[in-house]
Each structure stands twice: as structure tokens, then as C-alpha cells.
């Protein structure tokens, strides 16, 4: 609109015009505001929403530097500096939470993408239309349900007394396993559940990318006698590489964010026998809020997560910018 051109005008004018620049600049800004008022008003509900639910809690992170007590509130509780962080480091909690959160996310990202690509490519090779359709619908189904139901399904399979797994183990004469008190099994269970839930959903992006492949190239290769394996390894996989890299870098930005719903409904936040392998940042913060009422410690972990996570995003974005500038976030 007239905003940019009007703003550019004063620089062309002589020194005499510069003297009155502040005033006219203010008037230009005001006119821009007025000219955009309807669109601005249309954005107002969203701005108010994010202001209240996302920005207003941010100053609350000051909790990380105090010894919170209810009567003094957030900003009048005694200031303790870095003590909360020191405590988290000394107890080893911070290291465990960081390691678990990142390790799980790395497994999710790598195995998830590999499986999604495999599903997308294989789906594309199938000739039966109804088989494709039905299987895609079924694979997509787990994404549709709540984590509460996923937790129930896991219980159905893993329960010591009644679970399907132990029923099977008893049938073949093996000893039943006490899943809910054995920390070593959980990385496997959680990763498998994650893959079960998200593969169908995630493969859609890759499937769409495969569909976007120029069919003439594929047909030309077929006529030249390329078999399916050759087509996949020389045409389809290289074609998917940029999509894979972009998705990988995007997910890298979230590597410090845990999937609370998944962990909470599978394990619960208070099963201390499993903390060593299942406690992630989100479950720790939740526990410090709802069980231990240690608001300051929870906020210290949240602040650490946000700052560390922010640096990771900046790094990921720098990587994206180098590899494919069109896809960078900012």
C-alpha cells in the first residue's frame, strides 16, 4: 500500500525536510496504522490469544531464580540466584532428563523417518487400489485416538496379570515379565508405541512427495528396463532426499521437547521404578508441579529447556539456510 513509498519519500528531500522528519514520520506511521486497521483488527483475537497464553507465562520463568512460597507469590519469594540449577546439576537430574529427552527424540526422528519413507515407497509400488486405500486408512487410525486410549491399549498388552504379552509367554512356557517395574524394557516399548501411532500420519508427507515425482521419468526408466529396486534406489530415494533433510532439520529444532501425552499415559508421572529410562523433561516438570509442589525447580528445568531448545533451533535453521535457503524459517 502507500506505507513503504511514503516512508521512502523523506530521504529524497533536502536537509530542510529532514528537520521536520520526526513529525511526518509519526504521521506516516499513523496513516499506515489507519490504512491497515481492518486487517489489524482481524488479527487482534489471535494476538490477544498468544499474548495471554504464550507470552504472559514467560515472565513467570523468574520462578527459576527464587525459592517459591505461596504467600509471597512469584515475584516476592526470596531470590536464590542459580541455586535451583546448581541443585539440578548436583543431583544429576538435569543430565538424566536431558539425555532421556534427546535420546528418545533422536530415536523417534531417525526410526520414524526411515519407517515413513519405507511405507511411502512400498505403498507406491502396490498395484491394487483398494488394498492401498484400506491399508492407508488403517495405518492412519492410531493418530486419530487420544493418548488415554493408547495408554489403555498398552496396558492391555503389557499388564502383568492379564496382558496379551504374558499370556503368550505363558503359552510357550516362558516366564512372564513384570513390565511396569522393569526400566530396561521401556525405551523399546515407548519407541514402538510412537512408531505405531505416527508412522501412518508421517508417511503421508513422503507419499505426497513420491506422487509428485514426474511419471515420465519413471516410465522412461521402466522402458529402459530398470526394475523396481533400481527405480527406488536411483530415482525415488534421491527424489525424497530434500524432503527428508528438511523434515529432519525441522524436527531437530524440537529435540528438547518431550511428548508428554505419550510418556504420561504409558508410564505415568509417578512410577519411580522407571525414572531412570522414562523420565523426560516434561514429566519431571509436571511432577514438580502436581506432586512435589516444587514450582521453582520445575521452572528452572523449563527455562533450561526453552533456552537450550532455542539455541538448537537457531543452529538447525543455520543448517537449513546453508543447505536450502528457500526452506529456512527466518
Amino acid at each position, binding site marked *: 500500500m502507500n506505507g513503504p513509498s511514503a516512508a521512502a519519500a523523506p530521504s529524497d528531500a533536502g536537509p530542510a525536510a529532514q528537520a521536520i522528519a520526526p513529525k511526518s514520520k509519526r504521521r506516516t506511521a499513523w496513516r499506515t496504522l489507519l490504512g491497515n486497521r481492518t486487517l489489524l483488527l482481524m*488479527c487482534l483475537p489471535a494476538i490477544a490469544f498468544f499474548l495471554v497464553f504464550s507470552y504472559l*507465562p514467560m515472565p513467570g520463568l523468574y520462578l527459576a531464580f527464587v525459592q517459591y512460597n505461596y504467600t509471597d507469590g512469584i515475584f516476592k519469594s526470596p531470590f536464590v540466584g542459580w541455586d535451583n540449577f546448581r541443585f539440578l546439576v548436583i543431583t544429576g537430574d538435569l543430565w538424566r532428563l536431558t539425555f532421556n529427552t534427546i535420546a528418545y527424540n533422536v530415536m523417534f526422528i531417525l526410526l520414524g523417518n526411515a519407517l515413513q519413507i519405507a511405507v511411502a515407497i512400498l505403498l507406491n509400488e502396490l498395484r491394487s487400489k483398494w488394498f492401498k486405500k*484400506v*491399508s492407508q486408512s488403517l495405518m492412519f487410525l492410531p493418530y486419530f485416538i487420544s493418548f488415554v486410549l493408547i495408554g489403555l491399549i498398552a496396558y492391555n498388552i503389557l499388564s502383568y496379570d492379564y496382558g496379551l504379552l504374558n499370556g503368550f509367554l505363558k503359552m510357550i512356557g516362558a516366564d512372564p515379565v513384570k513390565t511396569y517395574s522393569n526400566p530396561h524394557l521401556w525405551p523399546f516399548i515407548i519407541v514402538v508405541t510412537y512408531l505405531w501411532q505416527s508412522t501412518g500420519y508421517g508417511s503421508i508427507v513422503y507419499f505426497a512427495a513420491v506422487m509428485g515425482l514426474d511419471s515420465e521419468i519413471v516410465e522412461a526408466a521402466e522402458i529402459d528396463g530398470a526394475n*523396481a529396486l533400481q527405480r527406488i534406489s536411483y530415482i525415488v530415494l534421491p527424489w525424497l532426499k530434500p524432503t527428508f533433510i528438511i523434515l529432519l532439520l525441522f524436527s531437530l529444532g524440537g529435540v528438547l521437547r518431550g511428548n508428554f501425552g505419550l510418556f504420561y499415559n504409558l508410564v505415568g508421572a509417578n512410577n519411580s521404578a522407571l525414572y531412570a529410562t522414562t523420565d523426560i523433561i516434561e514429566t519431571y516438570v509436571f511432577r514438580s508441579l502436581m506432586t512435589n509442589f516444587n514450582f521453582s525447580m520445575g521452572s528452572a528445568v523449563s527455562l533450561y529447556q526453552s533456552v537450550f531448545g532455542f539455541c538448537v533451533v537457531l543452529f538447525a535453521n543455520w543448517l537449513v539456510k546453508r543447505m536450502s535457503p528457500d526452506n529456512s524459517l527466518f
Partner: protein
Amino acid sequence: MSAPRTAIRVDGATLLVRTIGYGFIGAFALVCLLPFLLVVGTSFTSESSIARHGFNLWPRVFSTFAYKIVFENPDLIIGSYWVTIGITVVGTAIGLFIVAMTGYALQRPDFHYRNQISFFIYFTTLFTGGLVPYFLLINQYLALKDNYLAVLLPGLLSPFLIIMMKSFVRSIPHAITESAKIDGAGDFTIFLRLILPMTTPALATIGLFIAIGYWNEWYNAMLFLSPDMKYRTLQLFLYGVVTSADFVKNSAAASNVDLRDLPLESMKMATAVVATGPVILLYPFVQRFFIKGITVGAVKG
């Protein structure tokens, strides 16, 4: 189409890939389906059979006792249903309208503040205040404890949905907006009369994402709706039944079954079926909208 395909001889490697494809995809699809059948199967199994043989896909001893108890005292489940339906309908309507409005405004190339506002929204995905300040804000400062608004409000929008809407709107030529402006239409009128009707597929997709979010909502409900409230959301009700035997006993207290005879295990499954069944039945009809949304949303906004 099929003629040239058959003309090409299917060689060994292609046949192998196809066989692996059918085998792997078929098996994976089955693995995705079976847990649901397991829940349904168990819900129809008599409690004594569960105690002896554990959970099973196919009920060894068929029984509808669990459902009888669930429906004998349906007050709680029906109340929870109404709460969830109410929150879902109201939240989706309001949320969808705001998302569409914001998405359109931010996609207008002549909107002077679009980059600043886009960044303002996007930044919330990069840096957050964390759970504790969020909890204190809603619980104490906004005083929304035990108020359905605490579940309704936070689910209205997300940056992801606004970006998705922007991608959808981008496919509409800006010339349409411009010519309407020349005809003297205001920005809001253009959005309401021209853009909204043109983006119905997008609205269906985004509305579904919002609706599913509300339907599966248990997190905010768990944080802000205390057990003192009689009716909480459906998923939270299910959570109570799944995790706490006391909760089941309390909710079945009005029925005239001896509490020791309550079929606790099959009741969990029956409640899950009653709470989730209707949505799963809707699923085949709405699925394609989802696929569309994911494909569009993946292309960065």
C-alpha cells in the same frame, strides 16, 4: 493406462519389491488395527475368563455384563459426553473463525504488519514459559480453575493451524481481493463473503484438526478441572476409569451390584469403547480431509 503396464515384463526384482510391499504394508496395517479389536474383544469377555486366561482378541466366555454396568448408571458418561460435545462444538466454531480470519489477513501481501505479526505468533513455538507459569496463570491469575473455559480457551488456536490456513489462502489469487476492493468492499466483507466460501475444503480440514484436539482433550482438563467437578471431559473420565479402581467403584456405587463383583478389567475396555466408538465410526468419512491438511501443512508457510 493398464495396457502399457502389462506390456512391460515383470522381472524378479520388481516382483520381490511388490511381494515385500504387500506383506509389509499388510502386516503393518493389521498391527494398527489389532489393538482396537483387542479392546473391543476384552470388553465383551467375562471377568472370570479374564482372570483365568488374561486379555484376548476373541472372547473365550462372551459377556455383556461390563456394558450392562456402564449403562446401568450412565449419568457420568452421558454428562462427560455432553461436556466434551459442548466444548468441541463451541471451541471449533470460534477457533476456526479466528484461524481463518488471521490466516487470511497474514497472507495479504498489502498488509503492512504481516511479517511482524507472523513472527509474533511463530515465536511462541520457539520459546515457552513452561508448564508452571502457565498453570499459575490459568489457575490463579485468570481464576479459571474448575471452569470449562480453561479447557476451551487454550485449544482455540495454534501457530501450526494458522500456518496451514496461510498455505491454503495462498492458492487464491490476490486479484480477487483487489478487484473486490476496487468495487468498494471492506477487508472484513471480502473475507466473509468472498474468501470464506472459497476456502471450504481448507475450513473442513482445519476444523477437523481443532475438533479432534478438543475431542481427545485430557491434558488441560486434568490440570484445571479438579475431581470435585462432577462432569469433566470424556477422555478424562476414561482416564479415571483406566487408572483408578476407586474411581470405577465410586462411579458404579449407585448401581446395585456388589462392589466386589464389579468387572473392573472389562469395564475399562467397555468404557473405552463407549467413549471412542462414535468417533472411530466417523473416521472413514473425514479421513481424506486430514490427508489434505497434512500435505498442505508440510509445505512450509
